[in-house]
């Protein structure tokens, strides 16, 4: 079935550095999402994105976070600067449309470790 890819699978960086997490969504999908899962906790919604714009963001989506999808390439989540509490697994998802019977397809996640 359709697959969402995420690169890299694991990223280790020092606090204060910038990191970019990359997501390759399903090719004909239009809506994109990022979720964050701290170890042992629930996966929580960060942001959704459509037509070049953020549609909605949660309180977890701090000012240091940004998303973009330049020219139909990767859908990226950038954190600048990173903080210790940003250590988590970040899941990307995409869907072809909103509502109805459309479901979100999830990637395998990027494990971010901030030292």
């Amino acid at each position, binding site marked *: 079935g359709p697959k969402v890819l995420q690169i890299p699978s694991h990223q280790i960086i020092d606090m204060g550095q910038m990191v970019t997490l990359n997501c390759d969504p399903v090719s004909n999908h239009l*809506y994109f999402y990022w979720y964050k899962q701290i170890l042992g906790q*629930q996966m929580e*919604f960060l942001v959704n994105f459509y037509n070049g714009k953020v*549609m909605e963001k*949660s309180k977890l989506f701090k000012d240091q976070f940004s998303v973009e999808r330049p020219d139909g390439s990767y859908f990226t989540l950038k954190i600048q600067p990173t903080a210790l509490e940003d250590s988590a697994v970040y*899941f990307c998802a995409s*869907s072809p449309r909103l509502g109805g019977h459309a479901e979100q397809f*999830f990637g395998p996640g990027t494990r971010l470790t901030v030292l």
Partner: protein
Amino acid sequence: AQSVTQPDARVTVSEGASLQLRCKYSYFGTPYLFWYVQYPRQGLQLLLKYYPGDPVVQGVNGFEAEFSKSNSSFHLRKASVHWSDWAVYFCAVRITGNYKYVFGAGTRLKVIA
């Protein structure tokens, strides 16, 4: 506020035994509910989804779930568990309006011989 609770963090069953993984939701209105499975180093894979209609939903690999409005539940069941079902299972509700998912914490299923 909308929420999903999976009360069992870990469940262990014998291969061939039946399985029930519990999910309780809190949502104002008619929920759209999902069960996903996550195998090691893979993304979430959809097992089944509930849209308003028949309360019993059939999914892949012999899984089914039953929606209960009165109990605010969407429990996942399987008649006979296979070792390949060893994974983490997530229940989620989709929020009308922005269509984000609210997830439960997950249930880690272990299958023993």
